[in-house]
């Protein structure tokens, strides 16, 4: 944690309310995000209990599994979820614009520009916390290898038609969320703690209710007191007033409310199955329906506060102006969305359980590049982030004291003016170090020549001055100009090209061989998970 963030946190402690950790919003927010608040059954991997989902804050869709140990009911839940999520995704898949992409021509091996489609906008999923992102991945993994009756008439317990497709999409969103700066799938706690520093630790910031309490405490209360209430206050029933944002539930809820409700539901189902005539069946169906309604109400009561909290968080975030380079990163998310859309359309198989060596290396390279890009762009977009880089000696702000025209060696002398800059920062400059300033959104490089006096450095401008002998107007700093120079690069270079998976070298196990379709997960006879 940088000292600037530490200070902000301590100020939050002292003032009782969260302090800004950013002056602009560093993530793209969709005008129509899909909010997803899932709950899961304790102790069971991939046994959803229910969820609130939708794009309308006033009308969430409530999905409930009245008995999570029943495979059919779980499938029904997933099918309903697919009915909400897939049409939402489809509404973005259809609207495209023309774009160019550089590809390697398979015949000539040359890099050529090809015209392709790019989705004009992309969908955005918001979950309450990081555990929600993990849960999206888990749901994706549990669904994408399922077989529907249409795919495989022999499959035992076939999945409802669109469930495997939803699994592939959730997997894609879950994978994309690992890319730094991406915004297809975001956790509200991450979003809020990126932009505000609370008076509590990062671990405590994972509690959405407590985090919001610090950022926007109720009138007359301090953040600390409100956060403590959000964490611990219980009603007369022993239930948390602010239920956990999930997907895990509070054990007291499981034991005191949910377990008896499940029991009533199970009893009602058994009774209905044993009904001996129509009249009895009608009565017992009524009891079953009531039992089911009770569970629905319980799930709604635990998800609705979180649902409202997520939307409140979105309101707070919308008040911050969007950072200048956020749009550029969102375009990368649009490419990611378009790419997966195309893979699905092309009939490619679901994402494998494990990446092959080349895919893993490519993903790691991409994420490292995106991390560097995000670090640079956030600093350029936000003086508060830049302040942290200045404190650590990776950037410095200064005023131009003097400019002396000079020329480079070579056949055609090009302008290489020397700029003297005074700064109160302490950049860690080594001889020949490159520094960059943003000139019309593009980086201009200057080389560190030497230190003239304490706090006075001389730099040589290297580029962005045009082709002529005289620099283009406005391209050379002038006396009195103030700007910030960074020691880090503003734009990221592409990495080396890795071999195709079929050409995986012997050091990494050789080619993975003919791709066989991934088998579905084994189904157990018993109807437990």
């Amino acid at each position, binding site marked *: *944690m*940088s*000292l*600037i963030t*530490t*200070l*902000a*946190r*301590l*100020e939050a*402690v*002292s003032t009782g309310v969260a302090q*800004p950790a950013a*002056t*602009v919003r560093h993530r793209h927010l969709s005008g129509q995000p899909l909010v997803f608040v899932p709950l899961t*059954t*304790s*102790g*069971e*991997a*991939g046994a959803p209990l229910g969820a609130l989902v939708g794009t309308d804050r006033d009308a969430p869709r409530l999905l409930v599994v009245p008995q999570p140990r029943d495979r059919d009911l779980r499938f029904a839940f997933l099918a309903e979820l697919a009915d909400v999520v897939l049409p939402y995704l489809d509404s973005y898949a259809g609207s495209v614009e023309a774009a160019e992409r550089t590809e390697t021509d398979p015949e000539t091996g040359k890099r050529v520009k090809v015209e392709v489609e790019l989705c004009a906008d992309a969908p955005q999923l918001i979950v309450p916390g990081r555990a929600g992102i993990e849960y999206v991945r*888990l749901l994706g*993994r*549990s669904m994408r290898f399922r077989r529907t009756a249409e795919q495989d008439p022999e499959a035992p317990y076939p999945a409802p038609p669109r469930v495997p497709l939803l699994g592939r999409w959730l997997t894609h969103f879950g994978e994309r969320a690992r890319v730094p700066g991406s915004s297809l799938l975001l956790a509200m706690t991450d979003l809020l703690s990126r932009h505000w520093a609370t*008076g*509590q*630790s*990062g*671990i*405590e910031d994972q509690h959405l209710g407590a985090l919001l309490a610090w950022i926007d405490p109720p009138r007359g209360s301090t953040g*600390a007191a409100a956060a403590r209430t959000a*964490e*611990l206050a*219980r009603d007369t029933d022993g239930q*948390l007033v602010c239920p*956990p944002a999930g997907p895990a*539930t*509070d*054990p*007291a809820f*499981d*034991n005191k409310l*949910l*377990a008896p409700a499940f029991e009533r539901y199970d009893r009602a189902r058994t009774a209905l199955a044993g009904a001996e005539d129509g009249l009895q069946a009608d009565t017992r169906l009524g009891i079953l329906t009531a039992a089911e309604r009770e569970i629905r109400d319980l799930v709604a009561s635990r998800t609705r506060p979180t649902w409202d909290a997520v939307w409140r968080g979105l309101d707070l975030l919308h008040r911050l102006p969007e950072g200048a380079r956020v749009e550029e990163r969102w375009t990368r998310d649009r490419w990611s969305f378009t790419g997966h859309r195309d893979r699905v359309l092309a009939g490619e198989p679901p994402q494998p*359980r*494990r990446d092959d060596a080349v895919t893993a290396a490519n993903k790691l390279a991409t994420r490292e590049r995106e991390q560097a890009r995000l670090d640079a762009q956030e600093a350029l977009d*936000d*003086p*508060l982030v*830049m*302040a*942290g880089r*200045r*404190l650590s000696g990776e950037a410095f702000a200064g005023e131009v004291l003097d400019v002396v025209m000079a020329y480079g060696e070579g056949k055609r002398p090009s302008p290489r003016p020397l700029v003297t800059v005074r700064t109160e920062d302490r950049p860690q400059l080594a001889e020949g170090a490159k520094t960059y300033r943003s000139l019309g959104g593009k980086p201009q490089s200057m080389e560190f020549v030497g230190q003239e006096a304490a706090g006075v450095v001389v730099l040589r401008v290297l580029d962005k001055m045009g082709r002529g002998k005289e620099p283009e107007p406005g391209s050379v700093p002038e006396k009195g100009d103030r700007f910030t120079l960074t020691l880090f690069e503003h734009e990221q270079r592409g990495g080396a090209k890795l071999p195709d998976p079929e050409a995986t070298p012997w050091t990494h196990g050789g080619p993975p061989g003919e791709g066989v379709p991934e088998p579905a*997960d*084994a189904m*157990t006879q*018993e109807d*437990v*998970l």
Partner: protein
Amino acid sequence: MDKTALASALGSPSAFGQSQFALTRGNAFEAKVKADGGAELLRLVRGHLDPGAEAAERAAVPDLSAIGPEGRTARTALALREAGEAGGWTLLDHPMLALEVAGSPAFLEPDAVVVHPDGSWTVVEIKSFPMLDGSADPAKVGAAARQAAVYVLALEAVAARLDPSPRVRHDVLLVCPKDFSNLPTASAVDVRKQRAVTARQLDRLTRIEEIAGTLPAGTCFAPDLPAEQLTAAVEAVPATYAPDCLSACELAFHCRQRSRAADEVTALGRAVRAELGGLTTVEDVLSAARGESGDPADPAVAALRRAAALRAEALQGAACP
């Protein structure tokens, strides 16, 4: 000592406790793994740790019941010795082991210990979190490995008393449900590191007896005492609160309150202190940053003032662009 009850009595109830769904599932899974005289469990042990050994079709499963923890510990030690003499595979279901902690014995109950035909011993941990595509939650695996390392140490103490001393294997077997099913799968976990760390800690704990000695005579943590008395008793035990405690200890909310009341910066995380040098309270740091206290020659104070100035400049610039 029931720390949950104690925390509630102190006025800082925690969110701890276990869901009965998880409990039921955990028990059902363990029963399934150990069904049929542990046939599946022994198959996993042999497959993962000892593929060269004879097939584990028949295994001895000695009765370990006895009166009291001491009795069960003695029964376990006897069963271990007999298993070595008899040869073949033996499964010890819920054995009891004793480990000396700060001078007094602590009794431990591993899920299972398996004696191999070559006489070596393996600790088995059965957990109900899933292994998904061969990997599992690293925090949970880490906790299981630390737990198993304690069993390994306790078993080594038993082994040391036998002649010849059997080998206690440093690869333990972690058994978990596979993917989304209730079928068991397993992975060998090398606990040498955890074993070394635990051994060193236990060694140090014998010196912590002195801490116990500093407690007021008659200190007793019983939740039915009045709150002031309880608080006094708990506060006599030195504890350094850090937010990581919240996921590990039922008393953490109580300690957090004390830490916040004392204005400790570490209430925000131990890492916060890294650049603050000797400054330990929130007010000290803020007043040093404001230039009201602190020695400007202290690099921590100097850095704080620079940080405060840069932060103020950035926020001011943002307010009026």
